[in-house]
């Protein structure tokens, strides 16, 4: 009874726009049905209360010679307006449970991606040994299961198009899944406040056709690139949340003209910005704090960068003259 009705209303509402992002996975239509149903029920309930209020206010406004009635209660009425909302709430609860059950039942034999969150980037690790940052590549029409943990504080993996969200908690693994039926690119947000770069902790899910995905798996991203180009690419995805390639400061200092200069440090004598200095700053950032910047903000990239990548970054920073 409710299902076909809501389906009808859903299509009407969809034509006008439910303001939901486009459907990116198989959960989204299930979710949108429930959402539309709830919006309609909520609208009707609000209109009843607010409409009743406005009507009574006009009809029973103070008029000379008219007194108010003395009505203390009406048991039948009070029972009805407790019981009917209760039933509606139970429908919402039951339907919500049903959809939630789909959302939380992890598919068997899924394509697995490990997600490592850190302030303020998403790192994706594939079983093939490939690693990406910010961009996740998955095959179309394949269930994908994400196994997630955080290096530092709580983050939340949120893809609006998939209607899925799961907090990423340090010290343990949490999981979520999706099955994307169409090829496309969908934004990833961090939905749990994680500090300075919270709103910049963005990413993209690239849903690729099977052929494109296999091709992507085989490509070496650094093939034919010079170390400076490797560094530049990495800088865009890993560093640019906090550092500008100019002299302008962001969360951290701007990195132009830094290489080869004497850097003023907090509580330490000035240090020459040579290869070793840059390397230490990337892998053990707590060793130095540059004058005028808060301590302990920069996360360590130890274990996340290959030697080739660290060399590339050093070469790139060297080139920022």
């Amino acid at each position, binding site marked *: 009874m409710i299902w076909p009705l809501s389906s009808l209303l859903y299509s009407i509402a969809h034509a006008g726009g439910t303001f939901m992002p486009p459907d990116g996975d198989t959960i989204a239509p299930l979710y949108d049905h429930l959402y539309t149903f709830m919006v309609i029920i909520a609208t009707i309930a609000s209109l009843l209360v607010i409409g009743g209020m406005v009507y009574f206010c006009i009809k029973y406004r103070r008029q000379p010679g008219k007194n108010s009635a003395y009505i203390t209660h009406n048991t039948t009425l009070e029972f009805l307006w407790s019981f009917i909302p209760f039933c509606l709430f139970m429908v919402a609860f039951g339907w919500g449970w049903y959809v939630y059950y789909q959302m939380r039942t992890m598919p068997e034999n899924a394509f*697995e991606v*490990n997600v490592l969150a850190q302030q303020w980037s998403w790192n994706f690790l594939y*079983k093939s040994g490939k690693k990406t940052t910010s961009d996740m590549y998955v095959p179309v029409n394949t269930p994908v299961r994400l*196994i997630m943990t955080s290096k530092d504080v709580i983050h939340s993996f949120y893809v609006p198009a998939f209607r899925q969200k799961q907090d990423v908690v340090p010290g*343990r*693994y*949490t999981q979520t899944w999706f099955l994307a039926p169409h090829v496309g690119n969908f934004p990833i947000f961090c939905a749990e406040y994680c500090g300075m770069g919270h709103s910049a902790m963005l990413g993209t899910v690239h849903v690729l056709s099977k052929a494109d995905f296999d091709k992507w798996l085989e490509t070496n991203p650094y093939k034919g690139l010079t170390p400076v180009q490797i560094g530049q690419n990495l800088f865009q995805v890993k560093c640019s949340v906090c550092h500008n390639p100019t002299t302008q400061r962001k969360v951290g200092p701007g990195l132009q003209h830094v290489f080869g200069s004497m850097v003023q440090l907090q509580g330490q004598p000035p240090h020459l910005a040579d290869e070793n200095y840059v390397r230490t700053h990337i892998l053990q950032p707590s060793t130095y704090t540059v004058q005028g910047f808060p301590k302990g903000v920069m996360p360590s990239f130890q274990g996340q960068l290959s030697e080739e990548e660290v060399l590339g970054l050093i070469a790139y920073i060297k080139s920022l003259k």
Partner: protein
Amino acid sequence: MAQNKVAAEAHGHGDGHAGHHIVPMSTYVKVLFALLALTALTVAVARPVSGFDAGIFNTLIAFLIAAVKASLVLGIFMGLKYDKKLNLAIFFTGVFFLLVMLLFCLLDIYTRVHVQSTL
């Protein structure tokens, strides 16, 4: 809970002398010795002291003895046994909501699905 309070209130209102119950010293002395005996008992059944081992019940036994001791202090030393029922209701309300907090936290932690990394 609220009804209890209301009922206790209706009962206690007006008869102002109900609070002045004087417990005889002999009762206090008996309770003192009972408490000391229970302390000895809880030490005696503790594994690090006597080697007595009831497995997972060790903590439970220790906790039960502590609860008996606490109810003696509450009932006699603190006079809850002779006091207005409202005060008793307040005490149990506190304990009840503490249990609610504990049980829901335990419910969450012991029903979590444990996920392992696949790498």
